């Protein structure tokens, strides 16, 4: 297990003007694991996500994705190239294609799996129609998986918040990624929806073999489902290990609660979005 890392972050730093947002971040993420990145507000969690998915370019350091056949450095690639290597993500503030229907959102995500030949599309050749029907079938499967079949033809922007969250996860999964980065998937969900989401995230890993990297404020979610937790504070990794280890790490307790000894992390209320 120790040698099968899907993602290796080595000494990554990023500087915005005078602000050192991330400083010397290093950690490894095992293939097929659910890894959580936690930390107080402003710790640099989303910045780290943005570095991994190509939205920001690190000032220093490497990010390496171990594909099935070869290693690829992500830190110099444009966003869409990283996505094509099999890295998908969701956002803290939902970014669906609001005026397109739910199913169309999932069709757009299957970029690499449809027939993109212009002539074939205009004349709707048999191969084109078959590819489209396949894409639609996969989209319906994802809708079913997320319990969204009933709203397939509704505009994504008109769906209730919880459904939008699930649709966004489905859209990220529809491109058949090997690594999915979820930025606060439970933000704004009620207790019931959060429990369902936990189950879904587990199933993504168990049934589709995708490795999950997630940012989460909701400690209940983190401690229950993750195999590995990385704790950031002030742009640095202050703790890294299994949920149990991290939970009892005095550094973590200090970062979250000042110097108090109490550990009310498990089952804490959802943090701010």
């Amino acid at each position, binding site marked *: 297990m120790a040698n099968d890392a899907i993602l290796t972050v080595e000494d990554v730093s990023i500087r915005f003007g005078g602000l050192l947002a991330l400083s010397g971040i290093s950690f490894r993420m095992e293939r097929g694991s659910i890894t959580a990145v936690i930390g107080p507000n402003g710790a640099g969690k989303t910045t780290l996500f943005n570095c991994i998915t190509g939205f920001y370019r690190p000032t220093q350091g490497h990010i390496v994705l171990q594909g099935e056949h070869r290693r690829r450095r992500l830190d110099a690639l444009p*966003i869409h190239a990283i996505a094509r290597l099999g890295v998908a993500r969701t956002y803290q503030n939902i970014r669906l294609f609001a005026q397109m229907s739910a199913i169309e959102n999932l069709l757009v995500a299957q970029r690499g799996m449809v027939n993109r030949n212009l002539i074939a599309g205009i004349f709707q050749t048999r191969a084109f129609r078959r590819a489209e029907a396949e894409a639609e079938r996969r989209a319906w499967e994802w809708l079913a998986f997320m319990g969204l079949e009933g709203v397939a033809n509704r505009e994504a922007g008109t769906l209730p918040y919880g459904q939008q969250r699930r649709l966004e996860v489905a859209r990220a999964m529809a491109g058949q990624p090997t690594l999915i980065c979820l930025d606060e998937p439970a933000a704004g969900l009620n207790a019931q929806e959060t429990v369902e989401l936990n189950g879904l995230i587990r199933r993504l890993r168990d049934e589709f073999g995708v490795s999950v990297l997630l940012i989460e404020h909701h400690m209940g979610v983190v401690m229950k489902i993750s195999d590995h937790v990385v704790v950031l504070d002030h742009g640095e990794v202050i703790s890294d290990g299994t949920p149990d280890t991290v939970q009892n790490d005095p550094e973590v307790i200090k970062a979250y609660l000042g110097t108090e000894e109490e550990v009310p992390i498990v089952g804490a209320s959802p943090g701010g979005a």
Partner: protein
Amino acid sequence: MNVAQSLKDATVAALIAAVLFVPIVGLVLDGQDLVTHLPRAVILVAVVFGGRLLISMGVQTQLGRPLRHAAAALEQVWSRVGDVAGGKLAWFIAGLLLVLVAIPFLPSTTNYLIQILSLTLIYVLLGMGLNIVVGLAGLLDLGFVAFYAVGAYGYALLAAHLGLSFWASIPVAGLLAATFGCMLGFPVLRMHGDYLAIVTLGFGEIIRILLVNMVDFTGGPNGISAPRPTLFGLSFGRRPEAGEVAFHDFFGLDYDSSYRYIFVYLIILMFTVLAVWVFKRLREMPIGREWEALREDEVACKALGINHTTTKLSAFTLGATFGGIGGVFFAAMEGFLNPSSFTFLESAIILSIVVLGGMGSIFGVILAAVGITLLPELFREFEQYRMLVFGLAMVFVMVWRPTGLIRPGRRAFGVEGNGHGQ
């Protein structure tokens, strides 16, 4: 009955009317002097006030109820028009085509009518092109006329310098316009909204100014003549030039100037139908979905592996191709070109067609193109008030239907890929 609310509404309406009518009707230029005709304006404002009050009060009474229901019913019927036009009424489309093909052969049809119809069809074609760029990809392009001009001048110049025929010019001018579309696309890739609009506006003006100033090449403000199209080498002139055979001689008919108009009209009809069909297919293809996704959220698109550069460029390029082909037809129809046909006003009209019709919609854009070219012709009776009525009509459409005449419905997907089920 809510009298206070009605009075308030009527007062607001009267105020707006006063702002409009006092300067327009109340002040009259008589030679060098400005004469005030305030009573006329006051009467008009009073009419608006009274009318608005009557309507507000009227709808609230027992008598007004049918009126209210009628308005609601009308709204409902109209909202269905879009769905119905979406494809269920294949026979309606077939019938419409039949009528369009038959019109030029009716005895009462004049050359004037055929020309107006040809122009309308060209606007439909241009509307489809801009609909790709603005409606689907969401890139506000205020210089679309540039591609129209490139196509039109491309045809005229290719014929003059290289002796290219009308039929060969259609693909060549289309490619030429596509190249220009791509050229414009590169610098504006990083721009959005207002900035993009201004750069495209500038591009449109650059092309027009080049046409005016490159006198040796384009004929400058004097214009350039474009050759008339031929049917398999048969010309439509009264006296064919040396080496040419005239259409009427070949078929043993008497010369009639309308043959040429009918011929051009039928070609334009054919290509416009083709353009509408291609647009419909594009909208349902992966590339069409990606254009729309790009309009909705560029960042999310990139993170799904969509290359926003090539996607935007493809929208510009394909849109420009439609514009260029429209230009060839315009040149073929008019027989003569000059830069004043390609001003910013033309871009604005094409954009209005797309916005009024409903961005991304097919039926709406066709309807708007028909409205925008035919209404000013119909209102010729009103003479100087023609543009006022035209402007008013546009304002009313935007107030009544801010998303355009027809909001394009999303394609309905059925389970297990049975296409248009559900």
